[in-house]
C-alpha cells in the first residue's frame, strides 16, 4: 500500500461490544482504491460484525469508518444513502428478497435508483446473472434455488449497479470448487477491468491467497497479521501458521468456553479456576 494515495476506505480504532462482550477491539485498516483486501479469521471472531460496522449497519462503540473521506458512522440518513449507492454488499446468507424472483432481486437496485427503462434493466439483469452463471434461473424464486446459487444471485445483485467498493461476506463458502474458482476469477476481473475495490471475508485460504492484494487476519478482536499473500504463504506468527495450514493443534483453540467441561457436564458449571 502506498502512503501517497488517499484511502478509499479507512477504519480507525473501531470497537464493538455485544451485551458487554467485546467482539472488536481496536480495528485499524486503510484500503487504497482498486485494492483487494482479504479478511481471514476463525469462525465467530467478528468478521461479519466488522463488515456490518463498515457498511453502517451497526454503529461502532468507539472509532470511525471513513469512505471517500466521509464518516459513515455519523453521516445523516441522506448522505449515508448516497454513500450506499456507491458500494455493494454480498451478505453471508445471500439475503435475497424472498418475495421476488431471482431476476427481480437483481433488478431492484436498478429500478429504484435509475431511470433506465425495463428493456435495458432486463438486459443488465441477464448480463449480471450470466457473470455468476445463473442466467437460466431468472424466473425462479429464492426458495427454489440452492444455497450456493442464492449466494451467487446475491453477488449478481451486489454488482448490479457497478459499485466502486464491494464487500463480500464469504462469497465462496458453500460453493463447489468450480464455482469457487469462477467467483474468485470474477472478483479478480472486477478489480483488473473495472478498478473495483474489494473487501473479502473468507475462510478459504486458497481463494484468499489467489485474489488478495493484502490479507489481514482477525483474531481476538484485532488484526494479528496484515501482509501480502507471500507473507501468508510463509507465516512467522504461530497463530497465522495454524490457521493457514489448518492444524487442529496450536495456539488457537476451537473451544472458547470459559467453564470447565467436566463440571459443566455434571451440572456444576463453575468457572474454571485451573
Amino acid at each position, binding site marked *: 500500500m502506498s502512503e501517497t494515495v488517499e484511502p478509499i476506505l479507512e477504519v480507525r480504532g473501531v470497537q464493538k461490544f455485544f451485551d458487554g462482550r467485546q467482539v472488536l477491539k481496536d480495528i485499524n485498516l486503510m484500503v487504497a482504491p482498486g485494492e483487494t483486501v482479504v479478511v481471514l479469521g476463525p469462525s465467530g471472531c467478528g468478521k461479519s460484525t466488522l463488515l456490518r460496522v463498515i457498511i453502517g449497519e451497526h454503529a461502532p462503540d468507539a472509532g470511525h469508518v471513513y469512505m471517500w473521506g466521509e464518516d459513515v458512522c455519523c453521516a445523516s440518513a441522506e448522505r449515508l444513502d448516497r454513500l*450506499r449507492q456507491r458500494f455493494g454488499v454480498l451478505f453471508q446468507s445471500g439475503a435475497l428478497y424472498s418475495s421476488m424472483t431471482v431476476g427481480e432481486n437483481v433488478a431492484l437496485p436498478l429500478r429504484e435508483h435509475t431511470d433506465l427503462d425495463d428493456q435495458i434493466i432486463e438486459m443488465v439483469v441477464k448480463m449480471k446473472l450470466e457473470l455468476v452463471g445463473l442466467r437460466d434461473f431468472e424466473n425462479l424464486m429464492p426458495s427454489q434455488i440452492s444455497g450456493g446459487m442464492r449466494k451467487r444471485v446475491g453477488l449478481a445483485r451486489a454488482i448490479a449497479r457497478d459499485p466502486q467498493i464491494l464487500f463480500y461476506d464469504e462469497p465462496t463458502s458453500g460453493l463447489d470448487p468450480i464455482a469457487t474458482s469462477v467467483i474468485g476469477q470474477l472478483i479478480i476481473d472486477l478489480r483488473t477491468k473495472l478498478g473495483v475495490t474489494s473487501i473479502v471475508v473468507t475462510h478459504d485460504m486458497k481463494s484468499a491467497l489467489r485474489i488478495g492484494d493484502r490479507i489481514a487476519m482477525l483474531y481476538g478482536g484485532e488484526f494479528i497479521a496484515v501482509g501480502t499473500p507471500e507473507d501468508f504463504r510463509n507465516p512467522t506468527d504461530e497463530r497465522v501458521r495454524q490457521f493457514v495450514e489448518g492444524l487442529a493443534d496450536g495456539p488457537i483453540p476451537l473451544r472458547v468456553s470459559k467453564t470447565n467441561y467436566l463440571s459443566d457436564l455434571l451440572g456444576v458449571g463453575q468457572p474454571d479456576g485451573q
Partner: protein
Amino acid sequence: MSATSFVRLLERVGAQGEGLLAYLGGLGYLALDVLKHTFAGLVTRPRIKADETFFQMVRLGVRAVPIIFLVQLLVGMTLSFTLAPVLSDYGQLDKLATVISKAVFPQLGPLLASVVLTGFAGAAIAAELGTMVVGEEIAALRTSAIQPIRFLVVPRVIACILMTVALTVLANVVGTAGGGLVAYLVLDIDPWQYYHTAINSLIIKDVATGLIKGGIFGFIIVIVSCYEGLSVTGGAGGVGRATTNSVVRSIFLIITANCAFTALFYFVW
C-alpha cells in the same frame, strides 16, 4: 403487606409503565417516519409505489371480505334477537331499525371489521416483516439505499387504512341488513319499512364517526404490526412472538382508541 414489598410492587408497576411508554414512543416514532415518507412520496421522487399499494390492498383486505360479511351478518341478527323483546315491551318495535343502525354504523361496524382485519392483515404483516428481518432482507434493502419504511411500510399503511375504511362500509351495511333479515323472517317487519327507518334515523355524524374510526383503527393495526415485525430479534421464535403481540396489542389499542374517540365525539360533535 410489608413496606418493602409495597415499594417493590410500586417499582414493578413503574417499570411496566415505563415499558408501555417506551413502546408507545416507538409506535409514535414509526408513525411520524411513515407520515414523513408518505408526504415526501407524494411530492417528490421516488414516488409511492402504486402497484405495490394495490397489491397489498388485495392481499390484506379483499381476502377478509367473506369472513367480515359472515361475522357482521351474525352480529346483526343477534342484535335483532336481543333487542326485539325489549322494544316490543315498550311498544317500540318499529324503532328496531333505528336502534340497530345506530349501534352498527358508529360502533360495531368499525370495531368488528378492524378486529377481524387485525387477524388477517396485522398478523400477516408482522410475520412477513419479521421474517425479512431474520433473513437480513431489511438490512440488504437498507444497504442498497432503499429505505424499508418507504419501500415496505408506506404501501402497507395506505393499503391497510383504505381497506379498513372500505371494510367498515361493508360491515355497516351487512350488519344492519342482518338485523333486517331477522326482522323480516321472524318479526314480520316489512324490509322496505326497515330500510327507510334505518336510513332516516342515521345522521351524518353516525356514518362519519364510524368511517373516521375505521381509518384510525386501520392505522393502529398497520403501525403496530409493522413495528412488531421490524423489531423482531432471534429467529423463528421472535417472528411468532411478534405475530401474537401484534394481534393482542392492536386489539387492545383499538378498543382503547374506540373508547377515547367515542367520548370525544360525544362531547365535541
